[in-house]
């Protein structure tokens, strides 16, 4: 039951001639990934709108199907039949290419995320490096989208988006480096293998260690910023800059940008699951009979729910607040997290290692947070309710 997709793929590959079998195998993996994640994208759009609606005390979409679950079909039809408007002075070649080329690297990034036991599309030695390289290529494409529209607001949004993505790439990669240090390999499959086993009933995931928890939180915050997700969505906020770098895109190209952003969110959540949450491992030893891909997608849906929750709850960060947060708070925390991970590795297992590492994580957190407030008097939170 656990390996049902692997055996299915081997059976399908067995139909082709011997020379083409690697290519057929690759094509089947790619088709599977695109199919599954595009469907997940459709489901996520509905879940997000319903979830945001309930957080904001209203219903989400509820007309199209029962409880609005067929809404993505309506959205897809609308996106396809909408008129494709290209501004006359826009750079038409770059304007056309930008959404197309944007979707390719984000799907490429999903190729190294293992979705179950033996279910990786590519198992390379430098998997995590591949993921970050492909993520870095996405930024230039956003700039292409923003510049080619020949629109001042669009260019401003693109510049802000690039500044934000470059700034948050540093804590993202540094918090992943602490995991790579402990696991000893850049390959995603080996990192998951390093988190196998159960110690005293609890799994040996990296998130259940002090440096792992800090690293996981840093990684999730940086991931939200990397995919331009609220509360970091100033480059594309509706009320700030009227959708920033994709103002001039309508219809299907806008849908492609949307797809690219959400698949980017899935890809980076998938990497967070691989690095910190133990990949496809079950949380308790008595639950290992549930197939591994069910656990992976369950954890992925949980992380998506956290993203939607944060989007509905926190207000948007201003640009200078965003940059200050990245460089003054997250970068020192990520560096201290590296040191803490190293210290964890070399101390003997026991209560002292927990105490020392927790202190090393919490101490700088409290000191940095207090220090960066610079003495401004942040009183107790007050609430004003609408009557």
């Amino acid at each position, binding site marked *: 039951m656990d390996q049902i997709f692997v055996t299915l793929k081997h059976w399908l590959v067995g139909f082709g001639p011997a020379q083409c079998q690697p290519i057929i195998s690759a094509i089947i993996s790619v088709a599977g990934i695109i199919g599954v994640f595009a469907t997940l994208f459709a489901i996520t759009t509905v879940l997000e709108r319903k979830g945001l609606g309930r957080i904001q005390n209203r219903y989400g979409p509820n007309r199209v199907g029962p409880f609005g679950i067929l809404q993505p079909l309506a959205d897809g039809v609308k996106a396809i039949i909408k008129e494709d408007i290209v501004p006359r002075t826009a750079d038409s070649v*770059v304007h056309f290419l930008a959404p197309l080329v944007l979707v390719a690297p984000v799907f490429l990034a999903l190729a190294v995320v293992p979705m179950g036991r033996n279910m990786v599309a590519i198992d390379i*030695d430098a998997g995590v*490096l591949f993921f970050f390289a492909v993520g870095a*290529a996405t930024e*230039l494409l956003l700039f292409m989208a923003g*510049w080619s529209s020949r629109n001042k607001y669009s260019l401003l949004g693109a510049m802000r988006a690039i500044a934000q993505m470059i700034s948050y790439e540093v804590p993202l990669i540094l918090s992943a480096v602490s995991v790579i240090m402990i696991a000893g390999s850049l390959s995603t499959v080996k990192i998951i293998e390093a988190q196998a086993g159960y110690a005293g009933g609890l799994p040996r995931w990296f998130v259940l260690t002090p440096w792992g928890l800090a690293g996981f939180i840093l990684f999730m915050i940086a991931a939200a910023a990397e995919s331009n997700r609220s509360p970091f969505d100033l480059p594309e906020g509706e009320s700030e800059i009227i959708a920033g770098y994709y103002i001039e895109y309508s219809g299907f190209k806008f849908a492609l940008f949307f797809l690219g952003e959400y698949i980017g969110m899935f890809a980076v959540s998938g990497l967070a699951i691989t690095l910190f949450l133990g990949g496809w491992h079950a949380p308790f030893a008595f639950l290992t009979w549930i197939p591994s891909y069910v656990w992976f997608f369950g954890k992925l849906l949980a992380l998506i729910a956290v993203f939607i929750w944060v989007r509905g709850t926190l207000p948007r960060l201003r640009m200078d607040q965003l940059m200050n947060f990245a460089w003054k708070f997250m970068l020192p925390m990520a560096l201290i997290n590296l040191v803490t991970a190293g210290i964890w590795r070399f101390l003997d297992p026991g209560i002292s290692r927990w105490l020392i590492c927790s202190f090393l994580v919490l101490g700088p957190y409290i000191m940095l947070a207090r220090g960066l407030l610079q003495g401004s008097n942040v009183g107790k939170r007050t609430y004003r309710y609408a009557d």
Partner: protein
Amino acid sequence: MILLIILALLTLVGAVAAMSLRNLVHCALALTVAFAGLAALYLQLDAQFVGFAQILVYIGAVAILIVFAILLTRGSETPQPSILSPSWLGGIAVAVVVFSVLAMTIVRSAITDRNLPAAPQVSVRQIGEQLMTKYLLPLEVIGLLLTAALIGAVIIAMQEKETK
């Protein structure tokens, strides 16, 4: 072999386009294609770390830097007229002659007769170990250089704000 030719053609077309397109931002994007072709060549030669580092550094940072530099200085200019010089035919003839002289020298020298050792299988772990043992001093010097560059960039940016 066919893959090598395709990738080499892609890199060359990108590089030539980067020289000869009229719009400066298009040239920068064609240069990005050339970087991508180079990264693909590295990957085809099984140098995974160098290939991915090429994508991460060149496409992810250097290309963005070039594009920002173009934008903040002269990107709003109208496209230039043709940049080919009047004597382009003579230029191509000279280039072909020089290339053929160099190629014949290399092909007829003793270098084609040497015994090539088997290609080493370099993993990322080996690169890491070498960086930490044999090449530790260059690593630290590069770190120092990057720190100096970072501080210099911050100082340059800061002074621009103060004189306003």
